[in-house]
């Protein structure tokens, strides 16, 4: 085929730049997510079996089964998960994303984000907060009770509140948050504040009891990462617009399941290219050490794939207090990512770099030629199920993902004319 790679990649970049992700509403996972069913568990990263799942992923599956009432105990859940009647599938293959373990089950409420430029929707669960939470593999009574409260109160209150407020354009909100020191992966303080500013008056107008409204607003207020579960589906919606363009070498997915890191390339459709997930280097909470850390996990690297997160760390110097490194490192991470990307975002600007657009459109060929791997910042889960988060830090994908993708690209496209 007479495909010019630069033209194919320009098409992909144009589609990403044109995307306008907005909050469409909140729905029930089993009702709105394509292909979702009662015995299916969605998870982060590339496809994986129960046998190969890491501790935090297994913990989240156990918690998900207990939350759904499909298992009454850890032992029952483990037996059920290993028995074959429960199916597992990556969020990315259902138009969604999940932070850390990313486990979602049929009854969970999900954000529905619509890209107004193409009408397609993406999905993500509602953020539970930090510490002992399902996405880090915790499944204690308090975790399950919080999930039930999210289903019975938080989701319904926000769903009704969204009918009382003006349309929330997530791209605009992320643009503002970058001017306020966020990079919307591990720092969502400003974005969460901007969101609550929009939602609070609408929450007050809902028909729920005052104590429920107060608890909803307090919950969002107490959780600086609440916006993460919106920045992720917003990024997914933007990148989804670049799927699948013949001959394009733009990376549309980077995600991890705690065992493997997987990428997908625009011109190679839905094929996964995987390698072992690496250990995250960073700052650990008191009482934990390197041996407690699980390898890299979560779909949140969708933010880096979209030029945010580790790619925009120069916009968020305060984040080094959470993930480690110096402010100079943060500046250099962003500068380096321009070497492996094809464009600069029209919307996301980085104040300390004289408002330069964030590095956008990871080009497989540039990653391989320059031998520079994408820079990701991320949370760290305990390697055992049931414990939760132990810190945050910095990590790269394994080079194998990109090398295998390049080989497949040559086999697929570089035919004799």
């Amino acid at each position, binding site marked *: 085929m*007479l*495909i*010019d*790679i630069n033209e194919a990649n320009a098409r992909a970049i144009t589609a990403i730049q044109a995307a306008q992700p907005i909050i469409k509403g909140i729905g029930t996972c089993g009702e709105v997510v394509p292909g979702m069913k009662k015995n299916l568990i969605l998870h982060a990263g590339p496809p994986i079996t129960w046998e190969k799942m890491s501790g935090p992923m297994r913990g989240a599956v156990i918690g998900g089964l207990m939350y759904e009432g499909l298992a009454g105990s850890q032992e029952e859940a483990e037996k059920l998960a290993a028995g074959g009647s429960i199916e597992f599938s990556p969020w990315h293959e259902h138009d969604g994303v999940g932070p850390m373990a990313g486990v979602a089950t049929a009854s969970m409420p999900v954000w529905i984000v619509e890209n107004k430029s193409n009408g397609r929707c993406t999905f993500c669960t509602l953020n539970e907060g930090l510490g002992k939470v399902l996405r880090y593999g915790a499944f204690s009574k308090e975790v399950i009770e919080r999930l039930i409260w999210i289903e019975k109160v938080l989701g319904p209150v926000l769903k009704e509140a969204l009918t009382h407020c003006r349309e929330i354009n997530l791209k605009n909100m992320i643009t503002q948050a970058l001017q306020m020191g966020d990079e919307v992966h591990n720092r969502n303080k400003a974005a969460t504040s901007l969101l609550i500013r929009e939602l609070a008056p609408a929450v007050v107008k809902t028909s729920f009891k005052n104590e429920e409204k107060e608890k909803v607003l307090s919950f969002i207020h107490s959780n600086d990462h609440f916006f993460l579960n919106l920045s992720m589906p917003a990024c997914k919606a933007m990148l989804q617009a670049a799927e699948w363009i013949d001959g394009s070498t733009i990376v549309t997915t980077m995600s991890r399941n705690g065992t493997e890191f997987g990428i997908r390339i625009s011109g190679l459709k839905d094929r996964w290219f995987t390698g072992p997930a690496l250990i995250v280097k960073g700052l650990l909470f008191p009482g934990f050490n390197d041996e407690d850390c699980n390898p890299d996990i979560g779909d949140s690297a969708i933010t880096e794939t979209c030029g945010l997160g580790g790619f925009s760390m120069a916009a968020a110097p305060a984040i080094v207090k959470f993930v480690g490194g110096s402010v100079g490192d943060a500046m250099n991470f962003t500068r380096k990512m321009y070497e492996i990307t094809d464009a600069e975002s029209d919307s996301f600007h980085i104040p300390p770099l004289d408002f330069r657009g964030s590095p956008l459109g990871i080009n497989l*060929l540039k990653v*391989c*030629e*320059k*031998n520079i791997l994408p820079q990701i910042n991320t949370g760290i889960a305990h390697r055992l199920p049931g414990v939760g988060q132990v810190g945050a830090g910095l990590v790269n994908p394994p080079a194998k993902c990109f*090398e295998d993708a*390049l*080989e497949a*690209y*040559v086999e697929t*496209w*570089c*035919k*004799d*004319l």
Partner: protein
Amino acid sequence: MSDLNNIFKQTIKVINIGIPSFAQDLTQQGIMNVHVDWRPPAGGNRKIQALLEKVNQWQEKVRAARGKK
């Protein structure tokens, strides 16, 4: 040989290509230098270099074929 000896009698200005620590050592000794951040393509990985070359050759053929149309 005499030309080489003359070089060291002048103020030395160095362009360092590749390994940063060479430039850092010169800086510590007060020698003027400019560092160029260069690495061999694909980090020297022959297999990846060969694959990238196939992509380049394919693109040259595409451009040639399009030019003929």
